[in-house]
């Protein structure tokens, strides 16, 4: 997109958006699973986001720009996942001091020694487990809440566990406040403060599991609570130096269960993308510059 076009469009939308903003305590149009945000152009998406979701045009624009980068990098390859990314307000899940970098290709601090993963890795992980509507998904390590918020646009059966009590409470209050504002999709998220090592026995089995906490082995209870042919993704390694492990629980016809490990790139060697810095929707170097 041309910079001039972008500026003109943004200015118009900003004007349009500011007037109703004070009145937008609620999301104008509640989420439904057939909701499809426009992807044709930035202006179109921002306009739609302001009118349908009551969101800030600045963040909507940044989200669309990052969306473009995710698609180009093949972190999103299926429409439902693309729409889910565009519908998830990441800015609601970052700390106030990091709002300006909410859509940067970077993990950000959220306190308690926990990070909100970068949008590319969240997109890649979510695309990898390919959540279908109605599937039951378990997340170990609620953290910021962004991952489950993203998942809630793919299915209404999201369970999430956070080990750190104050973080679990903070994130729950964020969900509740957003639900209050009209984000009814977050009602599909059930959360609790507990030790995720043991999974969620009462809600098991799960079609998909996302683990976002560090551990030196895959907890056996999680493998047990994963349905046959279910998929689990687990970042391995400390924050900032992680690879994401993909685990598939295969069950043969004779009932024998085997577990196959690969990474979320499906065992292929792919080029890593250095942390890109967007200006508008154009990538301008990296954050090292």
């Amino acid at each position, binding site marked *: 997109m041309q910079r001039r076009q972008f500026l003109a469009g943004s200015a118009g939308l900003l004007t349009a958006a500011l007037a109703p903003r004070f009145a937008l305590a609620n999301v104008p149009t509640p989420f439904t699973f057939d909701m499809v945000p426009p992807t044709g152009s930035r202006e179109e998406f921002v306009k739609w986001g302001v009118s349908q979701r009551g969101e800030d045009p600045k963040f909507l624009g940044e989200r669309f720009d990052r969306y473009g980068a995710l698609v180009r990098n093949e972190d999103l390859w299926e429409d439902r996942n693309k729409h889910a990314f565009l519908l998830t307000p990441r800015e609601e899940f970052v700390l106030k001091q990091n709002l300006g970098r909410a859509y940067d290709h970077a993990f950000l601090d959220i306190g308690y020694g926990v990070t909100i993963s970068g949008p590319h890795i969240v997109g890649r992980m979510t695309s990898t487990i390919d959540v279908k509507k109605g599937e039951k998904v378990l997340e170990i390590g609620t953290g910021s809440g962004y991952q489950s918020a993203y998942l809630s646009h793919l299915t209404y059966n999201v369970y999430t566990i956070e080990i750190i009590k104050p973080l679990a409470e903070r994130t729950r209050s964020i969900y509740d406040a957003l639900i209050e504002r009209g984000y009814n999709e977050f009602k599909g998220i059930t959360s609790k403060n507990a030790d995720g090592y043991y999974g969620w026995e009462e809600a098991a089995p799960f079609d998909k599991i996302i683990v976002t906490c560090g551990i030196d082995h895959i907890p056996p209870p999680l493998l047990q609570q994963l349905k046959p042919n279910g998929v689990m993704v687990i970042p391995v*390694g400390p924050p900032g*130096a992680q690879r994401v492990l993909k685990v598939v629980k295969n069950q043969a016809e004779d009932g024998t269960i085997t577990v196959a490990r690969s990474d979320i790139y499906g065992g292929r060697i*792919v080029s890593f993308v250095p942390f890109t810095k967007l200006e508008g929707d154009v990538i301008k170097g990296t954050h090292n510059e």
Partner: protein
Amino acid sequence: MNDRFAPAEALPAAPVAEDDLVLDPRGRLALYLAVGLAAGAVIALQIDVMRVFAVGSWSHFGSFVVSLAMLGFGLTSAVMCVAKTWFQRHWLGAASVALALFGPLAVAANLYVQKLGFNAIFLVSDPAQKWRLLQIFVAELTPFLAGAVFLGCVFLKSNRIFGRVYFADLAGAGLCGLVFLGAMYLFRPENLIAAPLALWLAAMIAWAFGPGGLRALAPFAVLAALAFGGHFVAAPALGLSRLAVNDYKGVAYARKFPDSKRIYESVSPFGYIEAYSSSYLHFAPGLSDNAAFNMPAVPANAYIAMYVDSDGPIGVIRNLPDKDTAYFRFLPMYYPYVIKKDPKVFITQFGGGISTAVALRSGAKEVTVAEGNRAVLEAFHSKVFKDFTGDILGRVNKVIDYEGRHYLAHTQERYDVIDLSLADSTGLSNPGGFAIVEKFSYTREAMETYMRALAAGGVLAVTLWNKEEPPKSVLRLYATMAAAAEDVDSAHIADSFFVASSYLSTATVLYKRGGFAEDEIAKLRDHTKAMSFDEIYSPGFFYDGTQTDRTLDGYVEQIFAGAAGGPPTAAPAAEAGPGEPSAQADPAGPADPTGPGDEPGANGDTGVVPATIMGRLAWASLINGEWPKIAQRYVFDTRILTNDHPYFAAYVKTKDLPRVLDRLELLQDEWGYLLIWATLGVACLTACVLLAFPVIWGWRAVFSQTPGKFLTIIYFACLGAGYIMVEVGLIAHFVMALGNATVSASVLITGMLVFSGLGSLTSERILPKMRLAMPPIFLAIGALLILYALFLDNALDAIGALPYGARLLLSFVFIAPPAFLMGFPMPTAMTTLGRLGKDHMFIWAWGVNGCFSVIGAAAAPVIATNFGLGAVIEIAGLAYLLALPAFFGVISSGRKPRFA
């Protein structure tokens, strides 16, 4: 690696007798004490800052900050060079004020730095972190500046007694290093600042009874109250953190668990050890995924977590009943017991005791364990650990309280199983990057020792974390073990290894003396299959060579796509708009092994992840001798570990460094290594700026009249860089014998500085005949250092099994000869410059010395990781040899300029 431990020396002035300080004997003694204690306080503060960073965040930043803070001495030199007249006139007041401010500034700097909340892992992605780092540097610089001004002013007025003041400076700094070592037994890390503060207080008292005058006692007392009160009373009362542990340190997580409870704590030079209990702690390092479907549940509350300097966790296993140990069979350390029944076992690193517990439960008839960290053993002898572990150390046959490799090198005992498994922390947290530390247990020489200590048919089992993609450390381990086997028994190398790994988990290498029998291979293969581990190598294993190019090229592309000289990026990024992905990222790569649509490919490894293929390629080429060619093409440096190069670090090839600068995020586990390069760069840049100060201020004219100026600069640069490189290089070397970096640093600091101080004191006697006496001294230093570079490893290896006290004593004996001689060149040249009236050259040359000592400290780890520890000492030796011809430029009177 430890970094900057420089003697707290500062700017001396030209020894013009009438400017000198005149003191009675009691006053002179007080002066020497004040100088020694102040220099000791500066050294103690250096170590304290490094300890605080090691425990609170990341040790490498401690080295970085201290290195740069020591440039305060160079800065002081430059300023005093420019304002020499003022300082000569107001030296007493300036010295007293600077000394008085040292303590409060040290306390204030620490409290300020702890409040900043610096987070190294966001250094690249968050611009605010760089600003905080700058604030840390400036804050930590201030107390060192105060120390430098005090010592500089004293030197300025001490020309007639310079040799003795210099001795006091060196010896005081050295002995106070030992005092700090003692303090580490008494204080928690947050209160270790008490050591430099106490030394500073003593220095003020001595100063007041000497040149400072008794009237200085009252303000000194006020400032001492301010410093001690600020740290010990005001900070806790105001809720200020004295040591803020980063949220991303391992212990920070344990502290957040709801039922977390600290059940053990100990302080010593071997580390600040804490242990926590919590039901939220789960360890089963490298557990097979199949455990979930083939055994009862992993028992709850089976572990406590141990942290050393806030890093960890190291899992300490509870004494479990038989019914709860079924999962041991699913751990990678169980491998040797698949084929060895009733073995005699040696555990080379006890760690948290998991390997020992597995050995005890797997039918070992005899178990010997070794642990080099005495504080860890002490913890296991405590009641709380004994109760929890069922006194695991009491259940083994023998406990060796030093490194296993040293014991095995000197014993006649032979073992059926020797285990070196996952003794280190799991590395789940990362407050910045992984530290570059010497891993002498994994070197080629160590592996040879283990292999030779096996009984006939005995098995060496080494398990390492395998969490890198592209693989790095496991490839170094493979190459190191193959090289060791080549030395021990090259005839059977192809039959002697069995290797298995679990993707992004662990890798285990089994070496059997004499080679595996067919039935043993079959058993190991069955076990590997039952565990869903990947077989990497076994005797007769077929590797499909058609995958080699694709794998090696793919990894290069993965890291360097789009970089200068690298392959092009696979997909357009900058211009393209959002749209459908056009193609798979790497259609040539192997298929997804977990995908539903696996299709048989052209080779036997279709469906295998690249890291596994790379492991197989590595072993195939290690066995058939083609590894050097493969390693050259591999994306990372896979050099073997040796006693000279004992690092699981520095994987980025030096030639690739410029190409990774725009993709640092991909290499966060290498930040420790990249930081030592950054430190060197910043040190060089800052040193150049400081050295340019006098030139900018128009001193070129003065220098131009000074004969021998070029060689004088060379001389002091060589001494500055050479001395510190010997110190830093030997600290790393001596870890091999002393087993601990902090102890090694303290011994080296004390030994080097005290013996050099004695050399300095003795140097007065050779002044009249220095033209004849100094050349042999330089030659002796150079020769000794080169000999040390070549043979010190053998000597340290030989003393490794002696009692600890004997090792400490012999360490001092080894240090003494070069350190004593290295005490001669500096005071000799300094006094001569003064006598020749080369005032300004003299002052500037000291700046050169200070700046190059910082550069040398920063260069030492870079040289060590690239060329080996021996190279650091060799280069230092060459620097001293180079200083020999330069010495004649220093003592050139100008009547017969020889060199300049």
